[in-house]
């Protein structure tokens, strides 16, 4: 592992540089989001990977919507903290939840 310059280490220590944003994958297979509940933080990206031959969405009532075409993926970078429930607009029996830390 390369040695980090001291100033970066110091900025990390005092929280000036935010923790590395991550990409978190949610798989859709046979109309199921898995994992159904995902923990993340603001700045992370959720990537929904659709293994079905059906188009799905990740939709928040009165909020955002991500289209997830068949055999493709869709993603969203989280901008707000808090728990959020989402569902598929085409198949409202498909449900998922994101728990977003600040």
């Amino acid at each position: 592992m390369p040695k980090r310059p001291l100033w970066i280490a110091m900025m990390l220590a005092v929280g000036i540089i935010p923790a590395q944003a991550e990409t978190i994958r949610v798989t859709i297979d046979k109309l199921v989001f898995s994992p159904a509940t995902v923990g993340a933080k603001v700045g992370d990206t959720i990537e929904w990977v659709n293994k079905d031959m059906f188009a799905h969405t990740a939709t928040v009532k009165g909020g955002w919507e991500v289209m997830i075409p068949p055999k493709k993926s869709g993603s969203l970078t989280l901008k707000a903290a808090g728990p959020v429930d989402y569902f598929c607009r085409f198949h409202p029996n498909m449900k998922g939840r994101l728990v977003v830390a600040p």
Partner: protein
Amino acid sequence: MLIRYTAALAALLLLGTAPFAQAADKPTDPQIAHIAYTAGVLDVEAAKQAIKKSKNKEVVDFAKDMIRDHEAVNVQALDLVKKLKVTPENNATSKALTKAAEEERAKLAKLKGAAFDKAYVDNEVAYHKQVDGALETLLIPSAQNAELKSLLETGLKIFQGHEQHAEHVAGMLK
């Protein structure tokens, strides 16, 4: 309470006007494949009629969703029967389903505007409910081949999703 009511309604649909009630014995895999495929084709035809007749964006979008999903399921169904070397077999249930759908289509053909939209969407709710019931109580338990059973289970989730989607659209039409 609501769940009990819905279940009772589904049972009524199944026992009453439902073509599935006419199936005497447990269907065989070739018959199940035919029934499932037919159920999809009939919903696609209903959707095509709606796209032609409706001016309501929600209704037209919903109909397009039905065509897209049911065609995708049926592509998988055709691939599977080919792989399993099963020839789908026409049967009393498929015929009764087809006849009921033709009657419904003729009824809808006479309606216009909001009256058509409401009748189409209400029938979509009832139709999906009916097929859900048949999948759950008859087709899935009767299926012998594991892959066919698995495809039917995915089909059930699709149909249940469509039922809820149709209920949502019905709510918006009010």
